[in-house]
């Protein structure tokens, strides 16, 4: 069975959520059996997720039944959900019971607060190897999906469980959303190890979160840079966290002083700090820095995970032979997905990446073969751990407002992560644009700042002059 779930002790806890709901390994296997009686294989199922045992059980059961789940945020913008449904035509939904009335669907089964419901659509034609779908960004209004093949999630779960040395005693804190690749990897790697996942919906800034992980004896924590900003603000290093043994980062670049402080804290308290790196396209993780190197290699993402390979390409696309070098980071391995989908028809496409992914990130490799992310080729930002495409935002603004516009990123620093800077030619709509982007991305207005220009600088071919805008922004 998926992640060898049926080989774990049936009574062992697979997940506990902070509403008190729990699910054992035996129940997960039972849920898979139950769901297989409700729908045939190869249906396309939109799972509207929140960090609840019922969402986790649904995803596992549908995956096991060879249906193709797409995990989405149950709290996502309703317009975005409608757009995705029209675009892809899912044949079933797996969603919280209370939301079933919001869609024209017929419930056919239910499990731990979630229902399986039939939509008016028939399943699309899908490639036999297609196992699973995730959105490239947790929150932006882009319908672009990553097509996973059978073996991707399994390979990454196994590799990551091995790196961290998870066993059945581990109790992993999962505050990252299930539908976010890194959150899903926390779940999968723990299930593979027969460990328990502590699913929390309550925010890091609530006492409910801290009470939950303390009562449930959470042993490890995986966070994006913003999670760590909150932890630092809460002076977590001074907290009594007797069960917490491992800290891991992923989903973006920690400021160096934060990285160093975490490495030092871990070393000084007998804990482990893992810096990891990955993307949705690589089923979450492609690189990690062994914790014993964290103090020596501040800011590094380390080396390839077992079974994978990392290398650098120069501007002409050739592999760089020198050990110490800079170039575009590429990776290969069984965790590399098949490519993207932008519509229902794309779900029948085969493997277009063939096991090789070009990250679009510029990395430096030191003489010991450790990698450091230093910049990006592609135009996107990591805002609160979520990838937000600058191009997409420009298009959204362009379609909604009568103003020329250009979006760039402002560099992260301690205390404040990356931000988006929007240049407009019409100052009067500045606040409207901020509110609009906030609504579309689900991110607070404060991450968007607006400046007005008489005109957006362009080069001779009419393309926006981004280096010039960067200058204007400093």
């Amino acid at each position, binding site marked *: 069975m998926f992640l060898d779930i049926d080989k774990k002790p049936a009574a062992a806890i697979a997940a506990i959520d902070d509403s008190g709901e729990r699910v054992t390994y035996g129940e997960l296997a039972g849920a898979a059996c139950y769901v297989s009686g409700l729908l045939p294989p190869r249906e396309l199922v939109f799972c509207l997720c929140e960090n609840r045992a019922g969402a986790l059980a649904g995803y596992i059961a549908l995956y096991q039944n060879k249906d193709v789940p797409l995990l989405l945020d149950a709290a996502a913008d309703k317009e975005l959900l409608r757009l995705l449904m029209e675009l892809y035509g899912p044949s079933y939904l797996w969603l919280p019971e209370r939301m079933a009335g919001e869609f024209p669907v017929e419930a056919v089964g239910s499990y731990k607060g979630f229902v399986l419901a039939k939509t008016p659509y028939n399943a699309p034609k899908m490639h036999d190897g297609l196992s699973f779908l995730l959105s490239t960004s947790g929150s932006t209004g882009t319908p672009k999906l990553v097509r996973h093949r059978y073996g991707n999630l399994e390979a990454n779960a196994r590799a990551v469980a091995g790196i961290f040395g998870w066993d059945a005693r581990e109790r992993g804190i999962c505050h990252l959303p299930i539908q976010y690749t890194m959150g899903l990897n926390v779940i999968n790697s723990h299930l593979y190890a027969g460990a328990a996942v502590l699913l929390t919906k309550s925010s890091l800034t609530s006492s409910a979160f801290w009470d939950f992980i303390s009562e449930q004896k959470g042993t490890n924590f995986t966070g994006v840079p913003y999670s760590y900003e909150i932890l630092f603000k*809460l002076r*977590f290093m001074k*907290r009594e966290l007797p069960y917490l043994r491992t800290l891991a980062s992923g989903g973006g670049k920690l400021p160096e002083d934060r990285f160093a402080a975490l490495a030092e804290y871990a070393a000084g308290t007998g804990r482990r700090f893992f810096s990891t790196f990955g993307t949705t396209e690589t089923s979450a993780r492609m690189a990690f820095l062994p914790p014993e190197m964290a103090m020596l290699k501040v800011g590094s993402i380390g080396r390839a995970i077992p079974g994978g390979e990392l290398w650098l390409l120069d501007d002409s696309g050739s592999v760089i032979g020198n050990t110490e070098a800079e170039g575009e980071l590429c990776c290969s391995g069984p965790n590399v997905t098949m490519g993207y989908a932008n519509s229902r028809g794309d779900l029948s496409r085969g493997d277009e990446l063939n096991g090789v992914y070009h990250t679009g990130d510029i990395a430096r490799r030191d003489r010991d073969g450790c990698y450091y992310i230093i910049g990006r080729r592609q135009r996107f930002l990591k805002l*609160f751990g979520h990838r937000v495409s600058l191009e997409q935002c420009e298009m959204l603004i362009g379609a909604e407002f009568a103003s020329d516009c250009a979006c760039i990123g402002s560099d992260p620093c301690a205390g404040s992560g990356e931000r988006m800077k929007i240049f407009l030619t019409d100052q009067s709509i500045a606040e409207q644009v901020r509110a609009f982007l906030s609504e579309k991305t689900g991110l*607070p207005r*404060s991450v968007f700042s607006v400046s007005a220009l008489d005109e957006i600088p362009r080069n001779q071919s009419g393309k926006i002059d981004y280096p010039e805008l960067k200058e204007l922004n400093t």
Partner: protein
Amino acid sequence: MTNLKKYRAAFAEGLEIDGAQAEGASVGTVAAWDSITQMSLIAALEETFEIEIEPEDIVALNSWENGIEILKKYGIEV
């Protein structure tokens, strides 16, 4: 500006809601109240009243009313 006005403005700025909605706001009633806006709210309160809010108060802050109670600890009467 009175402390009440300042408090209302900090709530509105931090949670990105109208000042009129700030009074009586709580985690349960403001959809946008999550870890991100909570951090903005804390920053707005710290800046407005020139204080540093302790971690146990940061995690306790979940409504307009208990925010007023918390500020009393810092000698601020709203």
